[in-house]
């Protein structure tokens, strides 16, 4: 019972990423699908920081910071798109927004 192996952090990151994939594929509400994407980004950030610890270099943390910034920008634009879809179509169900479907 000493210290935590770094691979535990990576396994945790893999589990969170898989949960994000599951939410992305299974959920039907646009907002929840969007939150699953955020969960996947967070999982990847965790492994960036873990590798940064392993290599004793902070470049990984800088990448993680950039991912965070891009996620914030993406959230602003994505939620604006969700607002527009709801205003024009009156629904948040992902399978009712299917005008591009053949």
């Amino acid at each position, binding site marked *: *019972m*000493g*210290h*935590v*192996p*770094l*691979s*535990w*952090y*990576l*396994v945790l990151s*893999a*589990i*969170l990423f*898989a*949960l*994000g*994939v*599951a*939410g992305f594929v299974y959920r*039907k*509400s646009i*907002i*929840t699908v969007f*939150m*699953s994407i*955020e*969960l996947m980004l*967070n999982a990847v*950030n*965790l492994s960036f*920081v*873990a590798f*940064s*610890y392993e290599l*004793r*270099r*902070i470049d990984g*943390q*800088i990448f*993680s*910071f*950039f991912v*965070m*910034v891009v996620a*914030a*920008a*993406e959230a*602003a*634009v994505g*939620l*604006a*798109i969700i*607002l*527009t*879809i*709801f205003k024009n179509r009156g629904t*948040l*169900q992902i*399978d009712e927004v299917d005008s591009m479907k053949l």
Partner: protein
Amino acid sequence: MVDTILFIIFAIVAIVSGFNLVLQKQPIASALSLIGVMGSLAVLYLLLGAEFLAMAQMIVYGGAVMVLFVLVIMLLNAGREKSSAKSWFAQIAGLPLLLCLVALLGFLIRAILPPMRSVEFGSWVGGTAEHIGQLLFTTYLLPFEVISILILIAILGAVVLAQKELD
């Protein structure tokens, strides 16, 4: 010893909140579980010596992004989502494929990566604001400037998109 206990507690909180996010039918419950995931990840960043990133995680994700999500959920009055028919392929193969993904990633982490050091809290603090700022404004100056333009475009895009009429 203490790092092990802290890691286990917050890893369990993160995984339970992640499951809750996927399984809840109310979007607001999913949003609150996502805040739980982000908060526990911030603690894990602290354990890994990334102080600045832990604070940025709390402020940017836990604060700004999640407030945006909760605001939109409130604004659209998003209630319980209707479950609709899923394809037979998703029903049969979805869960096994997902378990395969986790097992594959776990195997790769165990088998391919070289043996790695174990995490000891306080043995390496590389992620202070000083270190991050130094690297951000020297080596990564160009990406930093590009990403500020990206943020500007995102602000304009959000304003334009939110008042757009489709069809």
